[in-house]
C-alpha cells in the first residue's frame, strides 16, 4: 500500500509523541523484523495524551481532506494474515480539510481509554495497540504514520490463592506428593514448593520443573494450540529414595512470561502450566502437569 514511497518522497513528516513521553515507562517491544524497540507503556483507563507534529517537506504545500488520529486495538492471527480484528477503534479529528504550508502541531487526547486486553506477542497471535495518524488526500494515497505502544494491566494480588498439592504415582513404582505454595503467581514471583517421595522403585536420574505456555487461537474446529516450554529447571540430581523431600525454588523473573489470558475477544487464550518431569535411567519421562494462573502485579519500584 506504500508503493509510492519508493518513487516519491513523502510530502511531509509526521511525529507522534506522548505528553509524558519523557517520564513514562518504556518497555521493549519486538518488531516484526526482529528488532526490539522501546515503546511507551500504558494501562487501561489511562488517558493517552500527546501531540502530532506534521512537517511538510521543503515547505511544500500539502493538500488534504482532513487529518485524524485513531487509537487501534487489534488482534492479528498469523494463519489469517492481513486480517486485523480491531476490538478498539477511537478516532479524533485533528484538522478539517485544507492545506498545510508549514509545521503544524495537533494536540490529541483519548481520555480514560478502556484497554482491557494486554499487548501480546505470541506464536500464532499478536495483540497490539497503535496510534494511527492519517492525512487523507484525494487521488493520491493517504499519508499514514503509526506509533505503537504497549498496554499492561495490573491485577491486585488474588484474595484466594490456594496451594497446589497432589499425590500422584504409578502403582508399585513411584509415588510422590508435590506441593506448590500457590496456584497464582505474579510475573516476578518465586515458585516455592517441595516434592515428597513416598515410594521409589525406579531408578531415577533427575527431576525437572518446566514452565509451559499453551496458546490456543481460533475457535471450534479451527483451534490452533501451540505449546512452548519456557523453563527447564532441574530440581533434583540423582535418585531420591523414600522419605526424601526435595525443595523447589524457581524464580520466574528470568523468563518472559505474560499473565494468563482467558478467551481474549473470542480469539485466543494463553495458559500456563507447571510440568513436573521425572526422568529415569532409561530416559523414560514421568510427568504431571498443573495449570497455574499468571497475573501482573503492579511493580512498586
Amino acid at each position, binding site marked *: 500500500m506504500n508503493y509510492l514511497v519508493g518513487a516519491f518522497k513523502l510530502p511531509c513528516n509526521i511525529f507522534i509523541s506522548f505528553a509524558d513521553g519523557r517520564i513514562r515507562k518504556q518497555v521493549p517491544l519486538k518488531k516484526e523484523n526482529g528488532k526490539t524497540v522501546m515503546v511507551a507503556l500504558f494501562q487501561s483507563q489511562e488517558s493517552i495524551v500527546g501531540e502530532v507534529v506534521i512537517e511538510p517537506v521543503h515547505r511544500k504545500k500539502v493538500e488534504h481532506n482532513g487529518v485524524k488520529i485513531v487509537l487501534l486495538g487489534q488482534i492479528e492471527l498469523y494463519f489469517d494474515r492481513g486480517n486485523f480484528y480491531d476490538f478498539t477503534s477511537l478516532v479524533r479529528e485533528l484538522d478539517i480539510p485544507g492545506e498545510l504550508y508549514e509545521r503544524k502541531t495537533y494536540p490529541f487526547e483519548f481520555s480514560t481509554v478502556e484497554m482491557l486486553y494486554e499487548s501480546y506477542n505470541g506464536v500464532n497471535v499478536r495483540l497490539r495497540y497503535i496510534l494511527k495518524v492519517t492525512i487523507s488526500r484525494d487521488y493520491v494515497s493517504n499519508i499514514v504514520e503509526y506509533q505503537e505502544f504497549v498496554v499492561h494491566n495490573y491485577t491486585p494480588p488474588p484474595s484466594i490463592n490456594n496451594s497446589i498439592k497432589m499425590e500422584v504415582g504409578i502403582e508399585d513404582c513411584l509415588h510422590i506428593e508435590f506441593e506448590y505454595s500457590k496456584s497464582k503467581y505474579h510475573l516476578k514471583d518465586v515458585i516455592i514448593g517441595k516434592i515428597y517421595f513416598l515410594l521409589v522403585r525406579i531408578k531415577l536420574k533427575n527431576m525437572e520443573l518446566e514452565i509451559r505456555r499453551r496458546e490456543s487461537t481460533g475457535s471450534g474446529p479451527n483451534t490452533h494450540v501451540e505449546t512452548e516450554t519456557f523453563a527447564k529447571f*532441574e530440581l533434583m540430581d540423582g535418585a531420591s*529414595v523414600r522419605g*526424601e*523431600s*526435595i525443595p523447589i525454588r524457581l524464580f520466574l523473573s528470568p523468563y518472559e512470561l505474560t499473565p494468563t489470558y482467558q478467551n481474549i475477544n473470542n480469539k485466543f487464550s494463553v495458559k500456563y502450566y507447571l510440568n513436573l518431569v521425572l526422568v529415569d535411567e532409561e530416559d523414560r519421562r514421568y510427568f504431571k502437569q498443573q495449570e497455574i494462573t499468571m497475573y501482573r502485579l503492579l511493580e512498586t519500584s
Partner: protein
Amino acid sequence: MLNGTEDEEKWLAEGIAGIQHNAFYMHRALDSNNLREALKYSAQMLSELRTSKLSPHKYYELYMRAFDELKRLELFFKDDSKHGVSVVDLYELVQHAGNILPRLYLLCTVGSIYIKSKEAPAKEVLKDLVEMCRGVQHPIRGLFLRSYLAQISRDKLPDIGSEYEGDADTVMDAVDFVLQNFTEMNKLWVRMQHQGPGGVREKREKERSELQDLVGKNLHVLSQIEGVDLEMYKETVLPRVLEQVVNCKDDLAQYYLMDCIIQVFPDEYHLQTLETLLGACPQLQPTVDVKTVLSRLMDRLSNYAASSTDVLPEFLQVEAFSKLSNAIGKVIEAQLDMPAVGAITLYVSLLTFTLRVHPDRLDHVDQVLGACVKKLSNIPKLEDSRAMKQVVALLSAPLEKYNDIVTALTLSNYPRVMDHLDIGTNKLMAMVIIQSIMKNNSCISTADKVEVLFELIKGLIKDIDGADVDELDEEDFKEEQNSVARLIHMLYNDEPEEMLKIICIVRKHTMVGGPKRLPFTVSSLVFSALRLLRQLQGQEGDIVGEEASMTPNKIFQLLTQIIESLSAVPSPELALRLYLQCAEAANGCDIEHVAYEFFTQAFLLYEEEIADSKAQVTAIHLIIGTLQRMNVFGVENRDTLTHKATGYSARLLKKADQCRAVYACSHLFWVDDQDGIKDGERVLLCLKRALRIANAAQQMANVARGSGGPVSLFVEILNKYIYFFEKGNKQITSSAIQGLIELINTEMQSDSTNPDSVADAFLASTLRYIQFQKQKGGVMGEKFESIKL
C-alpha cells in the same frame, strides 16, 4: 569396560579440560567485571562436576580443580564495586541457573559472602543452603557438594564468640546446621552402598571408605564449635548423631561414625554420656565390629583417667565401670557369633580401664575375670592363638598394675581363667606370674595365698593330662623348674605355724610333680623347711613349749618324707646331700637320734643306690665332711658312724680315691675345737693306712705300667701329718714327718717315677712351709726345729 581405569583417566582429563576451558572465559569475564558472563561460564565450568563416570577418587581431583576456581569467583562476588549487584540480588541471580549442581555450588559460594556481609542472619542463610542442597541426591555429587558447603561455612557458624553470633540460641542454629548437613551426607554415603550395579560390593566399599572422611568431618566441626558444652552435647548433639548412626543401618557407616564420635569429642563428654553412647552399641548392625569401638572408647577413657588423678572422682560419680561392664555384656550377648578373641579383647580393655580408674577395686577386676570365665566356658576349647594372647594379656594386666601377685591371688576368678588356657600358654602365664614375684620381690606369706598361687601355676608343677611330653624343650623345662624352685624360696612367714602350713601346701603340690620335677623342687622345699627349723630355734623357749604340734621333730619327719620322695626319681646323690643337710640341722637342734637316723639314711643310700665310683667318691667326702662337724652324737653312735665311713673309704675302687678318703677320715677323730674329740692314735692309724694304700698304689702302678704312680698322694699325706703335728697330736712326731719327707724324696728320685711338675711344686711349697715355720720361731718354730730338710 575392559580397561576401566584407562577410560576413567580419559574422562577425568576431559573433565579437567572442560573446567580449564570455561575457567579461562570466566577469568576473562571477571577481569572485565562482566557478571553475566562470569555467571554463565562458572555455571558451565561447574557442569563438569555433573559427571557420573568417575570414581570418588578421581572425582575428588576434578572437584578440587573446580574448588580452586570457585575461590576466585568468590573474591569477585565479594567485591560489589566490580559487578554492582547487591549480595541479596546476587543470591537470587545465581539461582536462575537451570542445572541444579552448578546452581547449588554458586549458591553456596554466594551464601558464604551473604553471611559475611551480615545482611541476613547467618542462621537463615545456612538453613537455606543446607535445605536447598537436598536437590542433589546423587551420592558422590551430593557428598562433594555438601562437603563444599561444610567447607565454606566452617568459619561462619553462629558460634559463641563468633562474629556471626546472633541473638538467642544461636549456637543451637550452628549445631542444627552441622547436624543436618551431617545427617544428609551420611544418608547419601549409606545410599551409595545400595545404588549402582550389584556384584561389585567390594569395590563400592572401597570407594565408600575413600569418602568416609567427608562425612566424619562434620563431626569434627561439631566438636570444634565453642558453644557445644557438655549440656548441649548431652541433650542434643550426641542423641541426634547416634540416632542417625543407628538408623542408617549400615555397618561401614556405623563402625566409622562410632569411632569418629569417640575420637573427636573430649573424654569428659564421653564419661558423662557413657550411658547414651553405650546404649547405642547393642543397636548397631550385627556385623559391626563393636568390640573395636568399645575397646577404643575404653582405651581413651583409660588414658584420660591416667592423665590426671583429678578426673577420677568423675568416673566414680558416673559409675563408668558398671556401665561399661553392662554394655560389654550386652554386646557379647547380642553378637553370638563374635569370635572368642573379640570378646576377650573387650574384657582386656575393660580390665585395663578398671585398673587405671579404680585400682583399689579388686572386685571389679574379679568381676571382669568372672565374666570372661563365663564366656570362655561356653567355648569348648580355646584354639585361636590370638584369643590365647588376649587371655594372657588379660591375666598379665593385674600383675603389671599391682606389681604384686598377692593382690592377684585374692581374685577368685583368676585361676578359673587360667584353666581355659592351653597347656603351653598356661605355662607361659605361670612363668609370667613367677617372674612378677621375682621382679617385685614379693613375699607370699599366708598358706591360703600359697595354695592359690600353686593352683595357678600348676601347669609348671605337674604334668597336665594330654600334654605331649616329648615336645618339651629340655632347656625350657629346666628354666621353668628353676623358677618354681626360686619361687619356693619366696614363700615366707615369720610365724612358724603358718610357715609350716605353707611348706605342707607346697609339698602337697610339688609331690605330684613326677620324677622330672622333683629334683628341682625338693631341694628348695628342704631348705625352706630347714630355714623354718632355724627360725624355730631362734624363738626357742617361748613358743616351742606351748605348741606341741610345732616341734623340730615333726619338721624332721616331714623332711624325711620329702626326701624319701626322691627315691622315686631316683636321685640318690641329691637325696644323700639333703639327708646330710638335715643331719646337720638335727645336730644344730641337738637331737641325736634324728641326726643318726639321717646319717643312717645317707649311708643306706650310699650302699644301695650310689653305684658309680665317682659319685661314691663325692658322696663319701660329703659324708666325712658332715660327720666331722657333728657334735651331737654320743661315743657309741659316733663310733658306729665313723667306723662305717672309714670302712666305705677303704673300699673305694681306685687306690688313689681310697687313699684320699682314708686320710680324710683322719679328721673324724680330731675335731679341732674345744670339746671336740681328739683321738690322736686313731688319726695316726688312718694316716698310716693311707700311706699303705699310697704305697700299694705306687706298686700297682709300677707293675701295671712300668712307671711310678703319683707321688702327689704322699705329699698330700705329708700335709695331713703336718696339720695334725701343728694341732698338737702327740702321736704325730717330727721323726715321722722326717721319715715321710725322705720317703718322698726317694720316690721322686727313683728311675721309674715320671717327673711330675705338679707334685714337684706341691712338695716344694710344702717344704717351704716347713722352712717358714722353722724360721718363725716361737712354739711352732721349736716344734718344727727337729725336722731336717
